[in-house]
């Protein structure tokens, strides 16, 4: 049994967000972190590894520096990592990205008991599309917003969080699960994990390695092949600080009316 955990290196939005003149994110000037939900996915995989001894493989598509992030995931406990990296893949949107990642997983091999874990969504694009699209490309069942996972023989029983409750779903492997932060608290890297992380296998899959994969359509990858075009992106203007009115209904209604009257709105 293997678990693939799909991870993305994203700009650290808790720091300064830099935007280029053309409206795209200036990623080079921002610190990078592992996408937070992906760390929950990794933790879920590592808990299954602790329980069953299965193999955990971290998979990411990105530029060469993403290797640093993958080494950190190995230091947390992943057995190996795959970095999908090539100029031909650059600028891919979610449609292209999921196709390439699915091809990479297929290339390495998806067996009957395997599971693919993804984070719910990335904090840079916030689309939550890549996980479901990978499942679609691989033609395996998927469950999104997973908040609890139990392995039961060849089945996986998961709790799917909804706004007003949850669903308990039994799903056959191989399958894909997207994880939410409520699922767990990601572990730290360990000292021995760090000492070993640079000697564990990290495979780089470039365009040549994947171009003949049946899941890849060469005209729908990369910036040119991506159906999504960004028309404009911008930083929304800061809103002024609001005023909280406290007290009972009548009191706050009167205060509100007085404020509106003072501003000549009513």
């Amino acid at each position, binding site marked *: 049994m293997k678990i693939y955990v799909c991870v993305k290196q994203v700009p650290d939005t808790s720091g300064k967000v830099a935007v280029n003149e053309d409206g795209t994110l200036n990623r080079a000037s921002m610190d990078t972190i592992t996408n937070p939900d992906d760390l929950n996915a990794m933790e879920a995989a590592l808990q299954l590894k602790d329980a069953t001894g299965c193999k955990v493989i971290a998979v990411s598509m990105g530029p060469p520096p993403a290797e640093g992030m993958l*080494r*950190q995931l190995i*230091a947390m406990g992943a057995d190996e990592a795959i970095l999908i990296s090539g100029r031909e893949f650059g600028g891919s949107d979610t449609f292209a990205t999921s196709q390439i990642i699915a091809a990479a997983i297929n290339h390495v091999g998806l067996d009957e008991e395997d599971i693919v874990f993804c984070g719910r969504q990335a904090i840079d694009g916030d689309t939550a599309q890549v996980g479901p699209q990978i499942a679609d490309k691989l033609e395996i069942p998927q469950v999104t917003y997973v908040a609890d996972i139990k392995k039961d023989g060849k089945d996986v029983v998961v709790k799917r969080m909804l706004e007003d409750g949850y669903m308990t779903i039994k799903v056959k492997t191989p399958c894909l699960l997207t994880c939410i932060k409520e699922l767990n608290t990601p572990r*730290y*890297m*360990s*000292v*021995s994990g*760090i*000492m070993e*992380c*640079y000697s564990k296998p990290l495979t780089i899959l470039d365009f040549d390695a994947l171009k003949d994969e049946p899941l890849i359509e060469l005209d729908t990858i990369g910036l040119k092949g991506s159906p999504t075009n960004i028309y404009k992106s911008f930083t929304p203007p800061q809103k002024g600080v609001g005023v909280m009115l406290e007290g009972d209904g009548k009191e706050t209604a009167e205060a509100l009316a007085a404020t509106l009257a003072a501003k000549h709105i009513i």
Partner: protein
Amino acid sequence: MDFALSKEHQLLRQMYRDFAETEVKPLAQEVDEEERFPAETVEKMAKLGMLGIYFPKEYGGAGADVLSYVMAVEELSKVCGTTGVIVSAHTSLCCAPIFENGTEEQKKKYLPKLCKGEWIGAFGLTEPGAGTDAQGQQTTAVLDESGENWILNGSKIFITNAGFANVFVIFAVTGVVEKRGRKIKEISAFIVERTDKGFSVGKHEKKMGIRGSSTCELIMEDCVIPKDRLLGKQGKGFNIAMATLDGGRIGIAAQALGIGEGAVNEVIKYTQERVQFGKRISQFQNTQFQIADMHTRMQAAQFLVYSAADKKQKHVPYSMDAAMAKLFAAEAASDVTRRAVQLFGGYGYTREYPVERMMRDAKITEIYEGTSEVQRMVIAAGLGVK
């Protein structure tokens, strides 16, 4: 000569810092005010391999190096001096002497549990009448009639981790020998377990700083331990103690380094928030010059500490380096934390901010594991100055 950290060391620092900020910092004030040993933090550190960082994997360690250990104590101490010294005393004063002097059986018995944090370690040398002057030892160990057990009698004071430790490296007088025509006490080292008959932990000291660290008295009343608990050769206790303290000083130097650096971090943050006379106080040249001096002192301390750690790792003599690192880092930490309180003004004197705690915590680093005066004696002797 390479001052750059390896990729592994950079990741370790990132992990230690992340852990310290998330798990240790939120407890630091409570641990200090309530004099509470942070057992939950110790358990978390154990899981991450932080209680046996530089020992080989075959003995349960994490297989890293001395610098990796020093950086852990440094990062922990930036936010909590108590947590820093728990790791330092456990590693340098208990795991290290067992690793360096123990028989294979002793190493196999004690190190895996110590490195995995199932057991906590401590070191018992100091006595009411014997601090720096180890020859003043009153604790005795004699073989019983069967010749199979040692019987220890005496007491130790100011023992770090004592209240929570399971394993103690204890020094005791095992006879009198003649050396260069003078009669001197023969000192030997022993491994004593908390559950040994006749062993007990006494009074808990109330301290000025590192208040969450458990500092207690140890009492041995006809304490019986098997013969094979002798650590190293009989009569070699003094050498073991001195060598252990050389290593321990690097740990305490790292603690001092962390406390000082932590204070600089707090000062940089606060002075850029606090406004007086219509300006952030960081805009005043006095503040800028103070911070520049504070950071420079801590940076110099870091070089001395890392250099001593590197020498220990490479098994080249490092007694003098450890003494210089501890002397400089401890005095720098005391100076920097005192200045930090001054820059915070009235707020710095209150417990609302952490700098007064850092100032109290820094002071002990000039005292324990050899006072600053002792470090100067070691350095002068190393230079051949008589």
